């Protein structure tokens, strides 16, 4: 298993990227390509579902950070959902929670775009 992405659409033109596997330098381009594709299609409201992601390295965080401002400038955002414990611990340790919203469940992340 490396990294697979399943794209879904939810209410309110929110796009969900369901990631399964791990995100390191060998797979980060999969996520980056998906974010690039959505951005170019002006689909800027994005939820990344990390429930099936067992590991995220700086390459993965970098891909998200690299597109965060672009999505926000396009009236959208990138929000994270359902991080597994060990991924969430690093997310918080690096204080990414100060500028990237995260939610326990995908539905909550989707709903937050309506707020």
């Amino acid at each position, binding site marked *: 298993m490396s990294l697979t992405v399943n794209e879904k659409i939810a209410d309110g033109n929110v796009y969900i990227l369901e990631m399964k596997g*791990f995100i*390191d*330098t*060998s797979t980060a381009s999969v996520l*980056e390509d998906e974010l690039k594709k959505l951005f170019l299609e002006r689909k800027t409201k994005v939820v990344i579902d990390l429930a099936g992601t067992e*590991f995220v*390295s*700086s*390459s993965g*965080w*970098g*891909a998200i*950070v*690299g*597109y*965060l*401002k*672009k999505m926000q400038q396009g009236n959208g955002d990138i929000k994270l959902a359902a991080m597994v414990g*060990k991924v969430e*611990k*690093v997310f918080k*340790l*690096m*204080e*990414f929670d*100060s*500028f990237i919203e995260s939610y326990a469940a995908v539905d909550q992340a989707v709903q937050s775009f309506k707020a």
Partner: protein
Amino acid sequence: MEKQFCIELAAESKNLMAIRRFFLATAKDIIPADDAGYLEVCLNEVCENIIRHGYEIKEHGKINIKVQFGKKDTRITVIDWGKPFDPLSYETMSNEELVKKGIKGKLGIRTIKKICDKIYYERLKNKNKLVMIRKHRKEKNRPV
């Protein structure tokens, strides 16, 4: 009593998962899962740097990893035979700067510095040696 484990693999990104699994298997039942998870990230970051920057693209060198679980700390020594590369000399950026500039790199070194208590780099003849040390936390779930 100290426990020590070693592995040597080709410096290729396809081996990163094997490196992470090696570390987690050695750490299991010796250090708390939280600490193992943090150090897994550090080891991965160092190896990613070696693969991406230490060796030339077509040059398949090796990475040698030694993990030592001591009474007071865990020590990970990583050796490679690539070009001189001191990750500690690289400037790190704040989260604000990273987001503002949309920079996708430079996070790995910051992660290592945040997790490890001590980091040493040495250039020895034709190889790089990086040592990362993280002291054992007293409480199993103590926040970092």
